[in-house]
């Protein structure tokens, strides 16, 4: 029995934090998406609940929890219950191997990448079973589409990941980031330009795996009502939603770990850029805090003013903490990791509001006739480059 210390308890604390804060973070991701969509369409987005609509996710969560839990009459009750649980469990479990920084990782297993791919392939089952159990036409069509799409694009994702594994020589997430630190470059630019091709393939496959537009055929609202989720409502629907956004964060964190240098700052080996470790977190939190305080006097209600002022002061306090060397040394990895994830998530949303949806046969043709051959050629090319370099 090892002694109970803070270091021994850290993985458990992180687990509790991820399972506890994860859903809240997902709520705010949805708010971000709505605000972004509103901005791109020259609207304001949710503004009523809280200052600038900041409390909207909490109101949504309460609404979903209080809704009646409808189970349609002819469904396969047992499978109907099981399906969302499977999806959400695997989505949250995938965080177990994600390295937020060299210190903040729940467990570093030597098959980390394989574990994430395995969990995401189990998560697909939840979608398939959910659509089947609903015993209705649109969900069944949605889950048939989801099956074919996810199986096809898993292969593409596999080839993109193999390209990185060739460069890193390890399946452990932490080792992959360390390999990038040793080779003085992100694997995005490794074996130039083939790393870029691998990243592009990963990006497209990740979008297809998480059912994001332009590949959101399994839940295409203009064709299939809501696809596999049509018969779900209330809390179960919320579980699917939670799993979907968790999966987005997981694939983005895998992309950051594999291609964008994980917790390393940009240009990790250029020493004179070391000031970035302080400037970037302090600057961004100062900016956010200042903006909140600036917006305080525009709020119509006293309650909103108090909430927004508190948020602004908290952000300024975090900025101050990042200026403190001990805190900075511990948390700058987490900051860079989260910042890179946010950039990727933002680009996912950007793509969603920019491109029209693919047609189903176009999607399949893109997967099997373009992406997979490209992936095979890319892996061979990277192998040749690595052998030539020695």
């Amino acid at each position, binding site marked *: 029995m090892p002694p109970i210390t803070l270091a021994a308890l850290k993985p458990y604390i992180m687990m509790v934090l991820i399972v506890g804060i994860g859903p809240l973070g997902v709520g705010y991701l949805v708010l971000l998406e709505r605000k972004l969509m509103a901005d791109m369409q020259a609207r304001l987005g949710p503004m009523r609940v809280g200052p600038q609509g900041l409390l909207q996710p909490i109101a949504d969560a309460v609404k979903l929890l209080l809704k009646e839990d409808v189970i349609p009459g002819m469904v396969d009750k047992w499978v109907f219950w099981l399906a969302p649980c499977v999806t959400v469990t695997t989505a949250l479990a995938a965080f177990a191997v994600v390295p937020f920084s060299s210190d903040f990782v729940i467990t570093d297993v030597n098959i980390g990448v394989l574990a994430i791919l395995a969990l995401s392939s189990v998560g697909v089952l939840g979608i398939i079973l959910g659509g*089947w159990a609903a015993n209705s036409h649109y969900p069944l069509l949605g889950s048939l589409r989801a099956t074919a799409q996810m199986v096809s694009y898993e292969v593409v994702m596999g080839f993109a990941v193999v390209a990185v594994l060739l460069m890193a020589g390890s399946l452990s997430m932490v080792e992959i980031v360390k390999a990038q630190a040793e080779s003085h470059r992100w694997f995005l630019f490794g074996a130039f330009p083939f790393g870029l091709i691998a990243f592009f393939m990963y990006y497209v496959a990740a979008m297809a795996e998480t059912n994001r537009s332009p590949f959101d055929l399994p839940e295409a609202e203009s064709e299939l009502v809501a696809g596999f989720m049509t018969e779900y409502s209330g809390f179960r629907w919320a579980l699917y939603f939670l799993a979907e956004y968790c999966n987005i964060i997981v694939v983005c964190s895998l992309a950051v770990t594999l291609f964008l240098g994980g917790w390393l700052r940009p240009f990790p080996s250029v020493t004179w850029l070391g000031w970035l470790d302080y400037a970037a977190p302090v600057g961004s939190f100062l900016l956010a805090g200042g903006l909140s305080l600036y917006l305080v006097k525009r709020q119509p209600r006293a309650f909103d003013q108090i909430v927004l002022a508190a948020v602004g002061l908290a952000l300024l306090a975090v900025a101050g903490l990042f200026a403190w060397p001990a805190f900075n040394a511990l948390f700058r990895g987490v900051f860079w990791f989260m910042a890179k994830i946010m950039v990727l998530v933002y680009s996912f949303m950007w793509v969603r509001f920019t491109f029209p949806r693919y047609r189903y046969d176009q999607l399949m043709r893109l997967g099997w006739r373009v992406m997979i051959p490209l992936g095979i050629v890319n892996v061979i090319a990277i192998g040749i480059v690595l052998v030539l370099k020695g």
Partner: protein
Amino acid sequence: MLDQFFFYIFASVILLGGLLTITRRSAVHSAIFLIATLLGIAGLFLHLQAEFLAGVQVILYVGGIMVLFLFVIMLVNLDQAARQRQFNRQWWLALLAAAAVCGEALYGLYRGRGAFTFPGAVPGNMPPNTQAVGNALYQNYMLPFEVASIMLLVAMVGAVVMAKKRL
């Protein structure tokens, strides 16, 4: 102690899953319990320090083969079949044969019980095995590996040719 605990957990998942796989009426339920069995076996692989195989087991069996099964189950209409008799006409013969196989296997194990201690076995852990499996596959087993890849290609082409209505 912990080893035995996990062995019991996984073994009960495997056996229960296997039993329900062959007794459920609905093919989808059978598939779900088969998935539970496969995950249990992946757990035992982890337990036996074959972590790479455990990952491959989940990705290939659960993420590939079982998804394919579910896809086909959804394509074909099995509602009628679920309401019909589940066992075929020779079920008593089948039971006899299965019992014979069971008896044979257990008798074989009982007779060979003395052979299960390996004096030459090295104590200690297996080395981290992803790299080791890779080396073995690409060095000692190169020819079988190539044959397997050709077989996969043939199977893929065969499946497409058979299932497509017109080429």
